[in-house]
């Protein structure tokens, strides 16, 4: 976790337990449950899996590197923009 999220979680690394077959969205939900002050409920937390922006429905595999991405200075990162 970086920047705002790192400071709010109090740590760069957080650990959550997820059942097999979980998605990126399941992970952000689990992190939110553990750190309710990470972001307001109405805000979507952007996630990167293996250094690439991922949709919430992307399945996670063991060994995946998952990062929560706070907004960058020019606005929310968009998968669309990244793929131009």
């Amino acid at each position, binding site marked *: 976790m970086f920047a705002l999220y790192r400071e709010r979680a109090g740590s760069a690394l957080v650990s959550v337990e997820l059942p097999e077959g979980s998605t990126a969205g399941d992970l952000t939900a689990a992190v939110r449950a553990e750190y309710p002050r990470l972001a307001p409920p109405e805000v979507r937390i952007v996630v990167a899996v293996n250094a690439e922006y991922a949709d919430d429905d992307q399945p996670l595999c063991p060994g995946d590197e998952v990062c929560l991405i706070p907004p960058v*200075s020019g*606005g929310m990162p968009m998968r669309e*923009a990244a793929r131009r």
Partner: protein
Amino acid sequence: MIILTDEPLDAAAVTDSVRRDGNGAVVTFLGTTRDNFGGKTVTRLEYEAYDAMAVKKLQEVRDSLCRDYGIADVAIAHRTGRVDVGHISLIVAVASPHRREAFEACHEAVNRIKTIVPIWKKEWFADGSRWVACEDHEFADEAEHTHAHAERHAAPVGDD
């Protein structure tokens, strides 16, 4: 040339890296730490990057510009860590045969970098600090928070 470093940036070296005999125009952007924001005095900035992904995204920005503008010579350098007032945090240099593409591609490069590259900027004021562009992530009671925060209306997106 793609550089992500916590050392001071060398504008001349980045600019020279895109100069070629077939290019008639070189446009260089320098992003520097401004001494004020929303009426408050800024004492320094601090940049934090997700390094591996940031380098990959900077390369993607370069490649997408070359494709979209039909150009070949783009260099980007981004500094991380503490950047004092007046110092350079971002350099984009674009060279092309004619000037129009160089101007347009350079401007667009900065826009894309600030949209998709995972590098975060924290502004330090005399009385506190804030992460830039995280306004949506503030809670209603944030005014009570220990850090001071710039007011919402004073925080346009893509400010520098």
